[in-house]
């Protein structure tokens, strides 16, 4: 198994801000366990998606891998090297091998920078070739992401472009250094539905061309289905199910995954909605429930679920679940 990206027990705990009086009263520090021991691998050239709702820790995990957020604990191996423990200049130089595409095409570009300069900036930052060659490389990249004629687009400012175009610029900028890993944080959630597939198609095309590996982060399971090879469902800082796309969407077994999938609207007037709704609201992230974190809301929970914590177990080849009562054969989906 080609473990190109290997994440091991990654954790991020945020200390809870307390007032002075509270701090005196309580002995222990409270933490928000945003990411609590996440482990997975990505094969080279594949797309892995971290899917989950807000508060699941998926974005924080993605950012920790790129060291935009400092991990509290854990390892991130990129082609064998532990990125999580790099520091200073080594880390800065290493960044060219792992890049990010952000969610908001409006906010992720400097409004005062021509987009051509934005795309060539990574080359400049890492001291690659000279000014005119960099310009050429940037123009080639703009061509590749479908912004033609690239010479014209080079001189535009973000405010002169649509959201879809700006996201293409963001993609060009992320790819121009031919990184090993690209983390895409909700790259199409702010793009019109009728344009999303074109951006996703572009990303897949570039992946093939430049032999990239993607980590996709999204809350939109429908989008995840379009682009992923492997999907990991996260809930309250943990991975609760991880499987190939086909497996996850045809045979979801974790109760949370089933609830999530059943909630996604389907553009079919004949679709009889068999939504399975979890009870209540998401539990406290500072004091998560004992045992399985989903148990207070789980329609299938039993006593043991509140006592012991289920670890991720391989159920079938390439399909792991963290549940004592995985729900198989629920017939939700047509392949």
């Amino acid at each position, binding site marked *: 198994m080609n473990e190109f990206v290997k994440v091991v027990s990654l954790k991020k705990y945020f200390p809870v801000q307390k007032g002075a009086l509270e701090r005196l009263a309580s002995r222990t520090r409270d933490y928000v366990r945003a990411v609590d021991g996440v482990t997975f691998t990505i094969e080279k050239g594949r797309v892995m998606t971290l899917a989950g709702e807000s508060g699941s820790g998926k974005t924080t995990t993605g950012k920790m891998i790129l060291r935009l957020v400092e991990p509290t604990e854990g390892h991130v191996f990129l082609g064998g090297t532990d990125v999580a423990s790099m520091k200073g200049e080594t880390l800065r130089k290493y960044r060219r091998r792992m890049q990010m595409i*952000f969610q908001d095409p409006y906010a992720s*570009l400097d409004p005062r920078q021509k987009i051509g300069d934005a795309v060539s*900036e990574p080359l400049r930052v890492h001291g690659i070739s000279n000014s005119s060659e960099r310009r050429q490389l940037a123009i080639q990249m703009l061509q590749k992401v479908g912004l033609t004629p690239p010479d014209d687009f080079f001189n535009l400012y973000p405010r002169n472009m649509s959201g879809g175009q700006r996201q293409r610029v963001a993609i060009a900028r992320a790819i121009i250094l031919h990184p090993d890993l690209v983390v895409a944080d909700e790259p199409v959630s702010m793009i019109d539905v009728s344009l999303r597939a074109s951006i996703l198609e572009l990303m897949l095309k570039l992946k093939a061309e430049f032999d990239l590996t993607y980590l996709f982060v999204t809350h939109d399971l429908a989008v995840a289905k379009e682009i992923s090879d492997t999907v990991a469902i996260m809930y309250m800082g943990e991975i609760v199910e991880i499987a190939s796309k086909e497996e996850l969407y045809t045979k979801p077994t974790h109760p949370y995954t089933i609830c999530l999938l059943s909630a996604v609207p389907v553009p079919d007037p004949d679709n009889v909605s068999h939504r399975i709704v979890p009870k209540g609201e998401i539990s406290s992230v500072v004091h998560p429930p004992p045992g399985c974190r989903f148990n207070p809301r789980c329609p299938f929970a039993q006593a043991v679920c509140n006592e012991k914590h289920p670890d991720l177990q391989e159920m079938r080849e390439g399909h792991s679940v963290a549940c004592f009562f995985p729900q198989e054969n629920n017939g939700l989906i047509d392949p």
Partner: protein
Amino acid sequence: MTLEFSRLFSRVLPKGQGRGLVIAGSAIVGFIVFLAIFAPFLTAYDPTHPAGLSMVPPSADHPMGTNTLGFDLYSRMLYGGRTILIVVLFSTFLSMICGMPLGLLSGYLGGVVDRSLSVVMDSIYVFPGLILAIAMAAVLGPGITNAAVAIAIVYIPTYFRMIRGHTLSIKEQRYIEAVRSIGAKTRTILFGHILPNILPTLIVIFSLNVADAILTEAGLSFFGLSVPAPTPDWGYDLRAGQPFLPSGSWWLITFPGLMIILLAIGFSLLGDGLNEMTSP
């Protein structure tokens, strides 16, 4: 030709709330600058030597009258423009090049650097401007450079605080995170991305600061702590003319006062206009 010009005009000064103010402000400032530059052509008199009888009210010969020493007031107003503009622009510029980098660094780096710089700046900022300027000028002694330095010190905290505040908010923007994720060095981020986005604010602060500095300079020279006599100086003339108001020699203080106010208003309008124009 005119089409090109008007198109350029509309691009530099797009139609909006600030435009009128900017035009008005620039007109006033431009006018005084013009008077100051072309002073030798606009008056025959030497502002530092007697030009006639003393205490002459405005007349054909002396449109603004003469002062106690017989200097022609009109020429003193014209040449005085030079003094005040030089002192004020120089000192504000000095404030900017000291305060701005410190504010940038403080805002971006945070932590101990930010805290210590802020403490120093706040303690200076706490003093009312004129009082601090007077204290500085008293320590440094009279003279045009010393006056400029004294005023500069007063305004360094202003730049520091505004630039720091702006840096703090820009620092949190998504595009800064993006540039950091590319692997850019701090230097690149500060000067390549944060500074260009601060520039509009900087220009506004500069303009408003000059307005304020004018009044401070006038104040300094009112107390004789600025340029030494007989260099033409509006504040000085204001002070010199003040005791004679009750006896009816109104022109001695009216004209210097008017010039100070006019220049301050001019820069204020300009600054306010730029502020409106650069606000989203």
